[in-house]
């Protein structure tokens, strides 16, 4: 589904990603861990198509398409979803209106009719339950006045509504208490299936207690330096990232 080969990216002339490789297949969950400044969020931003980043080398194939050639909104319409680390507030625009606009744009791209209001509302009711999002929040302005936990739940709610092929969760666990973490992770697990894939970017192992990954990758200095099964996360938690750094230098 997603194949990243030797990806290089920089911002303001400073190289952040330095030859990153990653292969994600349908039905898989990949966790990307690593210390601050390793390039985790840069990877998410580059895949989503944030303009500030300059791609200086490499290629990314997304479901047979050259991802780097696609505009940001085309990537989204092709089924790439980013759950933001810091969800953005849009005052005066209701969550419902925002999502219906997004959903209909995606449907139009696929050559489908706009969703009927009745079906849409039924979908909102069903999907908001997944993350125990209060129905009232659905009609409030996008993320405005939401608590940190509500914002993150809202991201997963949007993911549920848009049903992406590939979802990238960028530090979705940051700022969540344990209950909210469980709810968010529970929602993500319910959305897992054989046809989609999820990349979980996180600092800490604790999210991976709830969302069990198929692979754990360690990102350091712009490259994947180690890949292993889910147990790698535990090992990292125990030994710290320095262990990887030392290891990587010896490789």
């Amino acid at each position: 589904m997603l194949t990243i080969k030797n990806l290089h990216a920089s911002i303001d002339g400073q190289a952040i990603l330095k030859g990153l490789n990653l292969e994600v297949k349908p039905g898989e969950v990949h966790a990307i861990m690593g210390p601050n400044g390793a390039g985790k969020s840069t990877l998410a931003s580059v895949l989503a198509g944030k303009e500030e980043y300059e791609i200086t080398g490499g290629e990314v194939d997304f479901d047979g398409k050259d991802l780097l050639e696609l505009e940001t909104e085309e990537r989204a319409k092709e089924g790439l979803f980013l759950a933001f680390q810091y969800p953005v507030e849009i005052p005066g625009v209701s969550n419902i209106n925002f999502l219906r606009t997004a959903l209909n744009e995606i449907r139009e791209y696929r050559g489908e009719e706009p969703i009927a209001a009745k079906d849409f509302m039924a979908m909102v009711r069903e999907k908001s339950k997944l993350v125990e999002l209060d129905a009232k929040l659905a009609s409030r302005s996008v993320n405005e006045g939401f608590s940190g936990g509500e914002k993150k739940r809202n991201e997963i709610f949007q993911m549920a509504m848009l049903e992406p092929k590939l979802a990238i969760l960028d530090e979705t666990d940051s700022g969540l208490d344990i209950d909210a973490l469980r709810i968010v992770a529970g929602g993500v697990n319910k959305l897992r299936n054989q046809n989609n894939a999820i990349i979980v970017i996180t600092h800490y192992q604790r999210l991976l207690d709830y969302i069990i990954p198929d692979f754990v990758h360690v990102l350091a200095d712009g490259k994947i330096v180690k890949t292993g099964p889910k147990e790698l996360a535990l090992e990292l938690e125990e030994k710290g990232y320095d262990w990887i750094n030392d290891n990587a230098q010896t490789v």
Partner: protein
Amino acid sequence: MGYTEEELAKDLENSEYKFGFTTNIESDRAPNGINEDIIRFISAKKEEPEWLLEYRLNAYKAWRQMTEPEWAHIHYEKPQFEDICYYAAPKQTKKYESWDDVDPEMKETMKKLGISMEEQKRLTGTAVDFVMDSVSVATSFKAKLKELGIIFCSFSEAVQEHPELVKKYMGSVVPSKDNFYAALNSAVFTDGSFCYIPKGVRCPMELSTYFRINEGGTGQFERTLVVADEGSYVSYLEGCTAPMRDENQLHAAVVELIALDNAEIKYSTVQNWYPGDKNGKGGVYNFVTKRGICEKNAKISWTQVETGSAVTWKYPSCILKGDNSVGEFYSVAVTNNFQQADTGTKMIHLGKNTKSTIISKGISAGQSHNSYRGLVQIHANADNARNFSQCDSLLMTDRSGAHTFPYIECKNNSAKIEHEATTSKIGEDQIFYCLQRGISEEKAISLIVNGYCKEVLNQLPMEFAVEAQKLLEISLENSVG
């Protein structure tokens, strides 16, 4: 002043002699320029009573002594008043009884303007009085309104049919010498709308007028007079469009609202006159005087969404004369390319326990300049007056400008006045967030801007709000930078 009947008679005599307008009364178009004869010509064309001609001539005399105001934050080439044609009637001046009788060509023009009369008709309870180059050509729902005693007609018709009402209220809120453009309008106004709601009647439908500027080189000088008698209610919609044109066109309207005891007037405007091209060429000059007066417990709400005109100079105001009266002003003003807008409101608190609310949302794109200018005035007798003002500016580009000029004059210590102002630039992170959800940049901007204007758009009647949203979308195409 000092203009006697004798002098008037003499003037009339002279003019008739000089230009022979009496024989030329069938003409559809007055010669360019402004002078007493032109005014007599207009008045004669409209078969106006003497007092109205006098009113016009007095206004004209005052106007001659006045100079064009320069205090506004706008720069433009001043109109050449001698090059303007002050009266032009469409070729076909026949009145239509029903929509079916309306000339198909005219209907086609309306369609091109995006004013689908069919749609208007279908919209529940919207009566449309269509003003085309000064002469009212179509009026609907009249019978239904008549049952309730509501008068809704063209200004000229009102002058003929209800002279006592026109005479009583015309100029009572905006005196003919109020300002340069109001004086000009008072001298040469050609038509407009008149509305009277009798005591205790709640007007069951939105009253709506579409104005447009049609013939090349014609200025448009409309007058609107809305009188809501005691305990009545009316919601009035005014929409404006003008076709593309190269030369600048002047529009100087006067709108007067009178809300008697316990009455309420809601006045909504959507204005999208031609703003000029991308290089700032052409466009309409919009110099409008709008003012309302509230008697006891009365309420006036102005709501405006302005996306058009090259230059706008407009301050819909409320005189809160009666105790417990309420004034509201909700405004969205969008400027793009080289447009300039200097707009805002005046809330004059005279009565006790009077309340006013001002919500102004300015959006500047391209290289445009958008200014809010507002006055909140609390007079000595206005005990416990309240005002809340919120003036927000949204910048779409680095080259555009937003300016705020709030004036507060308070002569009563019990007053409570609050003013909030913000200026922000449209967020790239907001746009990215939308893009990442599959929403195109154009739609994203439209969503964000509509969200920003929501408090104002919410004040508009439903069908008008939809139109306003479309307008915002159109006027902000390719505007982020």
